[in-house]
């Protein structure tokens, strides 16, 4: 390693939301100089079996920004070690290692954004696309005592998706949550949205 005359990056921290993982740190300041950073990681396998081996991150070896999107590097549900160092020309800082190992199963899962609309007597839903990890479970029911709750797995897409053919004069409610197969976790439910169908209720 180069002589460590540069200060090592400090305050390493992980932010992970909806399976997008970003490592941040405090920038190393050397007036009128451009500092570059290199990020490396080690999965649990490497720590246990080849502890001398660290893998350069896909997007930040090197980078000039004091942050790194490591989403594509964290690809198994094990704990990962992460480290960063600064470089200025041939000068290299010591490595700084993230204090706590990171596991993607700790990511924050937010309730999905959704939009409920009608087309004639078709109840439709449009969901925000959160990426390939996500499945969307949509729960919907007719707002009346004892109504049965239906569940449907919906794929987000460009167009709204059909949920149900509804009856005139009735009201229907919808809520949704995400599921991430890789970590086996659900998000919380979205807010429940209800819509009233136009027209006269059908005679019994």
């Amino acid at each position, binding site marked *: 390693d180069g002589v460590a005359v540069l200060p090592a990056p400090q305050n390493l921290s992980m932010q992970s939301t909806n399976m997008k993982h970003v490592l941040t740190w405090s920038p190393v300041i050397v007036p009128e100089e451009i500092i570059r950073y290199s990020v490396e990681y080690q*999965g*649990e*396998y490497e720590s246990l079996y080849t502890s001398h081996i660290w*893998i350069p991150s896909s997007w930040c070896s090197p980078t000039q920004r004091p942050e790194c999107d490591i989403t594509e590097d964290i*690809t*198994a549900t*094990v704990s990962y070690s992460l480290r960063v160092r600064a470089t200025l020309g041939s000068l290299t800082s010591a490595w700084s290692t993230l204090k706590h190992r990171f596991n993607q199963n700790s990511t924050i899962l937010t309730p999905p954004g959704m939009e409920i609309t009608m087309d004639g007597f078709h109840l439709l839903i449009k969901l925000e696309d959160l990426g390939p990890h996500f499945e969307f479970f949509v729960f919907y029911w007719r707002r009346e005592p004892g109504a049965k709750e239906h569940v449907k797995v919906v794929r987000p897409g460009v167009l709204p998706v059909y949920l149900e053919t509804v009856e005139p004069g009735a009201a229907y409610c919808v809520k949704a949550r995400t599921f991430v*197969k890789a970590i086996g976790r659900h998000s919380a439910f979205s807010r429940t949205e209800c819509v009233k169908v136009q027209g006269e209720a059908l005679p019994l």
Partner: protein
Amino acid sequence: GLKTLHLGSCVITTNLQGIRSGFSEIRDSVQAKDEIIDIRILRKTQFLQGTKPADQCCLLHHILRLYLDRVFKNYQPPDHHIFRKVSRLANSLLTIKKDLRLCHAHMSCPCGEEAKEKYSQILSHFEELPPQAAAVKALGELDILLRWMEEV
């Protein structure tokens, strides 16, 4: 979705699809480096499916240990891209092995004669080759191991 493996009385859930996706990205590149195409390490006679359920957990546990101890460790990736993909596979198989170790701890992963016999055959095929060539061949045969697990 997630695959549930019933290995005798050991039941684990795993994301085989994710592992297969990771392997498919490097399959041609890794298999192209395996020039000894007259020899196969994971052979049909040692199939997981053809093994007595009670022995399946032990056989798979030993095979995964072989991969973690001697395949991924000896494999030298040609570039960082392959290196990251192989790391993903190693860490994914590690999670399966950790689950199998739990079964072992709960006495639901017994090692009968069939498991020992089949594993020793696999090991002898593996050790027929120099370590580096064996690692390349075994890594290239991960699709065989994945299919064994899918068909359990």
